[in-house]
């Protein structure tokens, strides 16, 4: 099942995710892929620290931008218009109960998308995400509850990259962020690539609403 929530506040989307996680645990729903775009928000994962936010929180508050502590892995990141966020709600089974393998396959979804534009996307060992020419274009932070996944993958399409100058993305001071639009040198919208992302997700995860079973044999990271 695919659910496109369009532009939705992060917290509202989170409530929907948690509700769907509970329903997936009870087998009331099939595996589901949620697509969303958020209004500007910074989120800090369980490994994160607020000092990786390099602007005053009051400055953001005055502009209606929240900083939220959230229950995903990873450090601080930014979500905003022009970024597609993909939230798979899937029950990991059997040999796929491997968090690294799951995240590897999420990376594969972004790699397949970016590869369509002949941009040579890469993984970086020890730095989860997808990179082009040393700049990060897609980020991953996940949660798993009773082996049902939530949170997920965000891909920068045409968002305002200035927001990333307000943080040390993922807690790393040397990270430069980029977007698909910046990389290809022309404006491309979230709407333009949604169908591609769904298709790439279906290919990587062999996702037909039946059982979650990735088609790629993941290579383990060090």
């Amino acid at each position, binding site marked *: 099942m695919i659910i496109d929530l369009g532009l939705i506040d992060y917290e509202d989307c989170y409530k929907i995710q948690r509700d769907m996680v509970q329903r997936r645990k009870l087998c009331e729903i099939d595996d589901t892929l949620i697509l969303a775009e958020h209004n500007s928000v910074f989120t800090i994962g*369980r490994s994160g620290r607020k000092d990786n936010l390099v602007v005053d929180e009051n400055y953001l508050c005055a502009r209606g931008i929240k900083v939220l502590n959230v229950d995903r*892995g990873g450090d601080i990141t930014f979500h905003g218009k022009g970024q597609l966020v993909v939230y798979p709600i899937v029950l990991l089974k059997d040999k796929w109960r491997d*968090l690294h393998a799951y*995240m590897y396959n999420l990376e594969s979804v972004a790699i397949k998308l970016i590869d369509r534009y002949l941009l040579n996307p890469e993984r970086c060992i020890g730095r*989860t995400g997808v990179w082009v020419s040393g700049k990060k274009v897609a980020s991953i932070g996940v*949660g798993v*509850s009773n082996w049902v996944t939530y949170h997920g993958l965000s891909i920068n399409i045409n968002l305002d990259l200035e927001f990333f100058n307000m943080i040390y993305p993922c807690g790393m001071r040397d990270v430069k962020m980029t977007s698909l639009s910046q990389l290809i040198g022309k404006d491309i919208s979230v709407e333009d690539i949604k169908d591609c992302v769904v298709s790439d997700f279906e290919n990587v995860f062999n996702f037909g609403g039946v059982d979650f079973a990735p088609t790629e044999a993941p290579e383990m990271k060090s």
Partner: protein
Amino acid sequence: MTDVKLPSLAEGVDKATVTYCYKGVGDVVKEGEDLIELVTDKATFNLPSPVTGVIKQLFVCEGDEARVGSIIAKIE
């Protein structure tokens, strides 16, 4: 008495950091309900209770490193 062990989370991962305890000693827990939250790399993992019962012992606190295969809690 049921021992709750930390399962394998990923190939090559032998421990994870406890980031939150949903339950404490003496609490009633239902089968499938989250007991603790752990984090490894870019993922959080909520360890569920395999049974319904009362938590008799909890061997980890927030901030602890839990090893895969170790007993996290005893539930009666």
